[in-house]
């Protein structure tokens, strides 16, 4: 039977499992999160490893912070095969610690770098596209819809940028939100905090922004194709200045 190894949710748990598999020369058929529904031909193996708390340091020291970052970004991606890609990337990084990111002749390296770039560029776009609304209690609230799980990258960004504000970023599809209390942010399940729509008051600066947005376009240069290429429609429902047009 094809063995599918499962891990409890979380980046560290996955790394712990990957390390164990590699160290014991186990070649998994697949690696999935624990609620995985196996097919008839698959056997689910749950090793229940205890979390290796030093794993981040280990990888950083042995393979460099860049390899760790690549693993993390691949983990955040929505790719179906991401765990296997991470497994083979990690395995080869141990084999070629100095040149791993240059080994584009290896499929796992190509795939990992592609996903890293994909997640990085989506997160970078969202750093611009996030739109906060001011709630009545002065808290800033934003909804995002992201293909990859960009929430933590965004939280880190806004932690530095909007240091003196209370803010919430809500990934509705994943049912998670980042909340920031002027000291640090926490990623929580979204049913722990109910947002009521009536808390959203009318905001004069939204209106000013729409005016600015409309005015700044030069009609002689109109080019909606380029606009859509840079700002894909899938994000428009949360971008107030283009939401209506969607």
């Amino acid at each position, binding site marked *: 039977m094809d063995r599918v190894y499962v891990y409890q949710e979380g980046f560290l748990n996955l790394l712990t499992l990957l390390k164990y598999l590699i160290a014991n020369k186990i070649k998994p058929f697949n690696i999935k999160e624990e609620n995985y529904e196996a097919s008839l031909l698959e056997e689910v193996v749950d090793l229940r490893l205890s979390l290796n708390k030093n794993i981040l340091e280990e990888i950083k020291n042995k393979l460099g912070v860049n390899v760790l970052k690549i693993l993390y970004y691949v983990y955040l991606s929505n790719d179906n095969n991401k765990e296997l890609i991470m497994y083979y990337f990690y395995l080869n990084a141990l084999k070629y610690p100095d040149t791993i990111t240059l080994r584009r002749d290896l499929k796992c390296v190509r795939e990992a770098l592609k996903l890293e770039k994909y997640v990085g560029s989506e997160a970078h776009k969202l750093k611009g596209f996030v739109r906060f609304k001011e709630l009545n209690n002065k808290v800033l609230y934003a909804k995002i819809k992201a293909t990859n799980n960009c929430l933590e990258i965004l939280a880190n960004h806004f932690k530095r940028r909007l240091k003196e504000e209370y803010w919430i970023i809500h990934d509705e599809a994943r049912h998670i939100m980042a909340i920031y209390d002027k000291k640090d942010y926490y990623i929580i399940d979204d049913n722990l905090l109910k947002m009521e729509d009536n808390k959203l008051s009318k905001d004069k600066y939204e209106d*000013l922004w729409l005016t600015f947005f409309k005015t700044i376009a030069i009609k002689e240069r109109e080019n909606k194709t380029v606009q859509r290429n840079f700002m894909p429609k899938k994000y428009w429902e949360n971008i107030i200045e283009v939401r209506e047009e969607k």
Partner: protein
Amino acid sequence: MELKDKLRILADSAKYDASCSSSGSNRQNKYGMGNTSISGICHSFSSDGRCISLLKILMSNCCIFNCKYCLNRRSNNIQRATFTPEEVCEITLNFYRRNYIEGLFLSSGIIKDADYTMKLLIETISLLRFKYHFNGYIHAKAIPGAKEDLVKKLGSLVDRMSANIELPTKEGLKLLAPNKKEDNVTQIMQYVKEKRNRNFVPAGQSTQMIIGGTNETDLNIMEKSFSLYQNYHLKRVFYSAYIPVNKDRLLPSLVKPPLKRENRLYQADWLLRYYNLKVSDILDEAKPNFNLLIDPKADYALRHLEEYPKEINKVNYYELLKVPGIGVTSAKRIIQSRKVFKLNFDDLKRMGVVMKRAKYFITCDNKFLINKDMLKKEFIEANLVLDNKPIIEENIGKQLSLFG
């Protein structure tokens, strides 16, 4: 007047400035609001496809000058408005908190005189920085002709400062902007170049030229840009296709702004800055304007076919860059990877090389991807153009005079 109306008027007057870049600075947020991102962040894209990163506004659209091409010129009968410093702060801060913008781009028409206007900009930006502890990106236009200590003061507050050269030749400037003097602009550039450090204009300076308002050639324009990069270490020269906002017998009556030409200038500008090419490599007196059908790099390659093919596993970085279809990223990848393993054509494709363009100009291990007999100038040129659908569509109906 309501704030909304002011914003409309003063954004409308500022929109022709091409720059909206927010890169090159990494101001930290010690306390207060905001920081900057070294690579810059686009927050939105307007319906003309341009990035919106900064709140781009004029302090005032009142102006004592009468530049022919400008909407705000003295003789135009338009609605005038001037922000108060507090109003600019209010909009900037509130837009920033909601993450609409990366910062502020503040420019102004010339109210009373250069010094007066400059002081108003300084007052506004000082408020933002010191009263409101705003650490987001600020790009300010220096007003040519203002006193040196004002230029110094403004530069110490902003991330980027710029002064627009407007037109590539002094004659052009004299014709269309008789009140302006190129020397006043280059004086500011010289000053910023000498003083620049991490507390003074950390993101560097830029400038802008209007394209197609006068009859200068692309060669004139590129020579001007090259000398600006050389003499004043500018970060960027922006090119802005002339849009007829005023009627004047001295101005061309263009129906459409020369956008393709503008695009070619940006491409060539890139070649100067990142590819180590010289203006004389891409243009000369015999051919002073760009081919609108073919980008400047492919054009260079076709005119220097004797330099090709380039052997991918051998030639250096700058030689790789001269291959159409290979950009900065893929060239770097090639250089790094070929130390570790020998590259073949499949590897190139995976590294982002556009093979349908590159294939005419490279060998891999001394092998060609295509039949060597097809490497004739006319054949390659026709294929490069035919592979480029948008160009074909733009030129439908016009005669495709490829081989003329």
